[in-house]
Structure formats: structure tokens, C-alpha cells
């Protein structure tokens, strides 16, 4: 009889325990000019969440062109001289092959062009062709990496990690959570997401409907660590004379890229790569992206301007359509 009572007590305890470990500790913040959210599960979740937020800001301070003391700002102010910049050097080393795969249409030195167009700011406007070609000349630059040092071939060019900074911050948080032995976590730096470790029920990450961050196009399910990023033309743009101008430029023309796609979501092995590949795939289009994705072991969800959705093989069992204005092919 005593044994039975004990069993009852134990099973009730178990029932409550299994309820307890499903809720994580969440902290929201603002960094890299966007919303940041960190949810950590398991032991030390509060400490890990605040450490993760700090890590994101620390990463911003290291690589943002906007932060005066950053490696990037130092490189940009160096007038073509070699600068010791270990973080930038590592990132550039990873990214240059992706730029090359787009035939230079994806570039890390378009700062001048972004300033000229001002897309996403109050002063966004259609520049003159003369101004665009002048800006393109300033952006035309080779980046040399030697060990921990970085040199720009064109002294008037400026490096800008805006296309990969959010994903790279996810990489840094991944390293931190791994060394702290966290069980599971979800990190959002704007639209760049890290699902870390393993938790009950896995991870559900929604892809926003292009043009409406508050509406879900579809949903991706992951059992374990994944890095997810999206690039699209409906995220930041301005309209003039009934024409839309978005924020992803073609480095060859100096104009917003003309694409058959509304957006590309990429799942890759690192955050910097999911960010870089989503931009590169948006530039390349669906057909030409296949090879690039394969070479990085990455997968993608393509959304075309005809509201069709194409999912690569690695994600076909993970993707569920939610928005019925779109057709899954």
C-alpha cells in the first residue's frame, strides 16, 4: 500500500515536471537597427539569455560600419592601407567565394550606393544616372585578406557587412551557448534566426509573407540546430511614379536588382552563410541558385513574383504552407 501511494505521488510529480521544462526564458532587445529576441531553455537560462543579448551588441560594435571603433570603420578610414581586423578578415574570407559565385553582383563594398539611394531612410529617392555611375566607381573595389589583415584596393570604397551582420551575430551566440552548455535556444536578430540544440516539440519558424511581417506564408520545422535567413524585395523599398525600388542592389548596374523572386529563405550551416546565400540566391534567381546551395549544403524556399513557392529537397518535409494566396509547387 505504501508503495502505491508513493507511485501516485511520483506520477503527479512527473506530470508537473514535464510541464515545467517546456517554457524558456525570453529577453527582447534592440540591436543592429532591428528587433532582437533571445529565448533560452534549460539550466542557467536567464544568464545565458542576457549573455546572448550582450554578445549581439558586442558583435555589432566589432563589425558595423556605423560604429566608429569597429574593425569595419577602421578599414574604411584607412585610405587603402592594411588594417589589423581579425573578425572582418575571417568573415570576408568566408564571403568572397559567395560574391564570386554571383559574378560580383553581390558585393560587400556598396556603402556609397546605399547612401546615395537612401532606401529605408526618409531621404530615399531615385538618383540621377550620373550620380549612380559616380557612386559605382567608388564602390568598385577588391578586398584583400592576408592573415588577420584587410586591405581595400580602392581608398574611396567602404566595406559594409549589412547583408550578413545579423546572421553572423547568430553565429557568435551559437558559440557562446555551445561553450556554456545551454540545452536549447531560439535567437532572432531581425529576420535572421538561430535554432540551437534540442527541445520538446522541436522548433517552428514561420516565413513571413513578403511585404507583411505580421502574416505567415508558411512554416518550417526543425529538430535540431539550424540557421535561417530571408532576403526579399518587399522588405525595404520606396515607390516613385508607381515604381517600386527595393534595397538589394545589382553591383553591376547600381540599380535595385530585377528579380523573378519576391523572397528567398535559406537554411544553412552558419548564420553568416544563411544571410549571404539568401542575398546571393535572390540575385541569381531560382535556377542558378541550385548549384551554389548544393556546394554549401544549404536549402531554400523560393517565393516568385507569381506567388509560387519552390522548396529544395532538404526542406520538402519541413515546410508547411499557411497562406493560401500562394501555391506550393
Amino acid at each position, binding site marked *: *500500500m505504501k508503495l502505491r501511494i508513493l507511485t501516485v505521488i511520483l506520477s*503527479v510529480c512527473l506530470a508537473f515536471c514535464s510541464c515545467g521544462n517546456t517554457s524558456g526564458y525570453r529577453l*527582447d532587445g534592440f540591436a543592429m537597427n532591428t528587433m532582437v529576441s533571445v529565448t533560452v531553455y534549460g539550466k542557467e537560462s536567464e544568464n545565458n539569455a542576457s549573455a546572448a543579448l550582450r554578445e549581439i551588441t558586442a558583435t555589432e560594435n566589432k563589425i558595423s560600419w556605423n560604429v566608429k571603433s569597429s574593425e569595419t570603420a577602421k578599414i574604411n578610414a584607412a585610405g587603402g592601407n592594411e588594417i589589423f581586423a581579425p573578425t572582418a578578415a575571417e568573415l570576408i574570407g568566408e564571403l568572397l567565394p559567395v560574391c564570386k559565385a554571383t559574378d560580383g553582383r553581390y558585393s560587400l563594398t556598396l556603402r556609397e550606393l546605399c547612401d546615395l539611394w537612401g532606401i529605408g531612410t526618409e531621404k530615399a529617392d531615385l538618383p540621377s544616372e550620373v550620380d549612380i555611375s559616380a557612386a559605382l566607381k567608388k564602390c568598385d573595389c577588391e578586398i584583400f585578406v592576408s592573415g588577420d589583415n584587410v586591405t581595400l584596393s580602392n581608398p574611396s570604397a567602404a566595406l559594409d557587412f549589412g547583408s550578413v551582420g545579423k546572421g553572423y551575430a547568430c553565429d557568435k551566440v551559437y558559440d557562446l551557448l555551445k561553450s556554456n552548455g545551454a540545452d536549447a535556444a531560439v535567437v*532572432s536578430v531581425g529576420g535572421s*534566426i538561430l*535554432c540551437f540544440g534540442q527541445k520538446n516539440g522541436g*522548433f517552428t519558424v514561420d516565413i513571413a509573407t513578403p511585404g507583411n*511581417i*505580421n502574416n*505567415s506564408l508558411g512554416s518550417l520545422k526543425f529538430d535540431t540546430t539550424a540557421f535561417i535567413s530571408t532576403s526579399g524585395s518587399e522588405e525595404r523599398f520606396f515607390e516613385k511614379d508607381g515604381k517600386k525600388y527595393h534595397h538589394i542592389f545589382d553591383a553591376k548596374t547600381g540599380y535595385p536588382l530585377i528579380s523573378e523572386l519576391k523572397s528567398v529563405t535559406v537554411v544553412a550551416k552558419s548564420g553568416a552563410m544563411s544571410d549571404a546565400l539568401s542575398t546571393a540566391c535572390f540575385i541569381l534567381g531560382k535556377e542558378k541558385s541550385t548549384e551554389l546551395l548544393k556546394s554549401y549544403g544549404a536549402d531554400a524556399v523560393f517565393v516568385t513574383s507569381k506567388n509560387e513557392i519552390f522548396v529544395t529537397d532538404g526542406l520538402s518535409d519541413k515546410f508547411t504552407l499557411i497562406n493560401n494566396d500562394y501555391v506550393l509547387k
Partner: protein
Amino acid sequence: MKRPFFRPSDIILVAALLVFGGVFIFMPKNEGKTVEIMADGELKATLPLSIDTEYAVGEVVVVIEKGAARIEKSDCKDKICVGTGKLKNKGDTAVCLPNKVSVRVSGYRETDGVTW
């Protein structure tokens, strides 16, 4: 010795199951549903979805009415946040990026993140 159909300990077991089972079955579905209003990274307010109210963060006005929250007014250009409409289910979120304000319902099923 013949085993009785019910032992005193069985009564304890059945009673325990009824009590705890009842707690889970009769828990109202929108129990604890709240609206979290964040601004510039800080949690400004956690309001119950069940009480009609109005809450302003700077120029962004959040209204809770008949069990749903919405961003009623904002001074931003695109008004995507206002266009989002009613937030009822857990995870429903309206974001006004220009004002760095987010309104999110905590409730039952929710996603871990949104990529855009």
C-alpha cells in the same frame, strides 16, 4: 487470501487522478492570455486580453477590446502595424519597426521565430 476489488490505496489513486485530471481538463482555453507590449527592447506592459483597455507607447496606441488586441494608431509611414488588425491567438504579433514597438499575445500555440 482473496484480493478486494478496492483497497483504500486505490481510492487515493482515483481521487488523485480526478483532482489533477480535472485541473487540466477544466482549465479555460484562454487562461493567462496576455498582451506583451515592448518598446525599444523593454517590456512596457503585460495586459490581460480579457479586460478592455487602451495603452499608448509614444505615438503608438494599443487597444484591447472583446478579447483581441490591435494597434489602433501610429505615426509611422507605412502603417503595416495598424493594418495587421486583431491579435487574438498566442504568438499573434504586430510590429511597428519605425517606432521599435511590438505587441504580442502570449497564449497557447506559438512559433519560435519569424524569418523575413
